[in-house]
């Protein structure tokens, strides 16, 4: 199945992050007379390899890999070698943790295998290397993401505004954008 092949091909690029996991410690067994104690919730930092295979029925994709911005190009090369095509590039502005997330969707023609590649760059000046020389379709997707979020794709042939007027210098989809 395409999924297994691509999974171990991308395994090397997956980033390990610290994510907070809420653990509930069951209350200790009550000593004879007192009432039983309440379970206690504790937040903990856990090392987590950011390569998931979520269930397709709920999420809509099979493989979700988080990579560093530099590894996006290598991931794209692996994917085009295995005949994936680029469906779309999405930008998400996580203002609370000061990051902009760029999500790449890939899919296969023959078998159904939707792969999602994620990167996070810091919000003040977001930088992601371009993949428009590998996937020519990414040229427009990246220009649009630059329009809406201000992510500069290094190496992109011409990052002028695509959907906004030529002299636009604002980025409308940022959460703190005021018209």
């Amino acid at each position, binding site marked *: 199945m395409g999924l297994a092949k691509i999974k171990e091909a991308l395994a090397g690029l997956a980033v390990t992050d610290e994510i907070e996991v809420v653990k509930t410690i069951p209350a200790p067994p009550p000593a004879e007379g007192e009432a039983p104690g309440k379970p206690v919730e504790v937040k903990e930092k856990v090392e987590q390899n950011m390569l998931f295979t979520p269930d397709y029925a709920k999420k809509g994709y099979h493989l979700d890999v988080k990579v560093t911005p530099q590894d996006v190009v290598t991931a794209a090369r692996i994917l085009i070698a295995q005949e994936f095509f680029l469906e779309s590039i999405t930008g998400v502005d996580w203002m609370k943790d000061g990051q902009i997330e760029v999500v790449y969707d890939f899919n296969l023609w023959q078998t159904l295998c939707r792969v999602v590649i994620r990167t996070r760059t810091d919000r003040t000046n977001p930088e992601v290397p371009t993949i428009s020389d590998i996937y020519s*379709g990414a*040229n427009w997707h990246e220009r649009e993401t630059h329009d809406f979020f201000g992510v500069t794709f290094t190496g992109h042939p011409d990052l002028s505004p695509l959907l906004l007027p030529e002299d636009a210098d604002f980025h*409308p*989809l940022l959460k703190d954008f005021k018209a």
Partner: protein
Amino acid sequence: MSADVIDKSLETFVLNLGPQHPATHGVLRVKLTMDGEYIVHAEPVLGYIHRMHEKMGENRTWAQFMPNTGRLDYLAALSYNHGYAMAAERAEGIEVPERAEYIRCITVELNRIASHLLWFGAFVLDLGGFTPLLYAFDDREQILDLLESVTGARLTFCYFRFGGVYNDIDDNFITGTREFIKRLRSRMPMYHDLVTKNIILIKRLKDIGPISQEMCRRYGATGPVLRGSGVNFDVRKHEPYSVYPEFDFDIPVYTEGDSMARYMVRMDEMEQSMRIVEQGLNKLPEGPVMAAKAPKILKPAKGDYYCAVEAARGSFGIRLVSDGTNTPYRLKLRSPTFSNLSLFSEACHGMLLPDALALMGTLDLVIPEIDR
């Protein structure tokens, strides 16, 4: 776009196939650098009808965004309703009753036929023939009457709800649809005799605007553009959703990859959609059209969800990022014609201007869907 390096000694002039042009079916502007009748470099300029649906998604609740999906690609708006409704249902885990699924598929396929009929009329109009437009619109009006009797709208539908559809179909819709299919089946041979076998059309479309599979993969083209280049990729079969597995229909695929192939794919797709509608009507189960416990206020769990449907122009995808509140955190609309048009610049390199317009006609563009 492959950075084509043009030698400077060539005398070229810039022609604007501008925002107001009959062949661009909307407000697309293509900046053409021309050498006489030949196109040296074509650069589509977008944004003339950019209305920012995605930001509207971020300050509207989940249900309030449904009318927007009808105004993205208003020729096949029901598949956009379907995509958005399914994405939210998957995220929330709502079960859609059987009858509602059948009604959804029937109305989406009827809408696809209407969209292809309008494309057929407008495309032959681009090539110079005026009368097929009037015939195609006549048929299309029949479908719009049927869909209007059920949904209330002619073009910008807002018919689906999370968990079903809001209005059940009645008997004269069913008899009307059967009559319409009989009538359209009797008229399709006339369209084929008058237009498809017309030597002028064949001369204008045969081997014009070849698009290779490799180019489709690099640009992410989907839908009839891809199926015209020999790839059997149709989201209804590739990623079966709703009740499409119950219908037996096949996907027309042509391998030549020229404008004639893309034209024939859409003409055959009308026949397949009619088969689906007929089977849908025969197997229509009884029962409710709205899920019993569809939540009024939708609050899907945190995380992001992707859902793709086969719209008339390609695979329309929606990426929802929800943070658990009742308004989406981010809502990305993956529009098929955005990717289909991105290969226009490379596909029409060095072509004659009229041939490039024939190629653009076969890409079947709807500009508000590209600009969103």
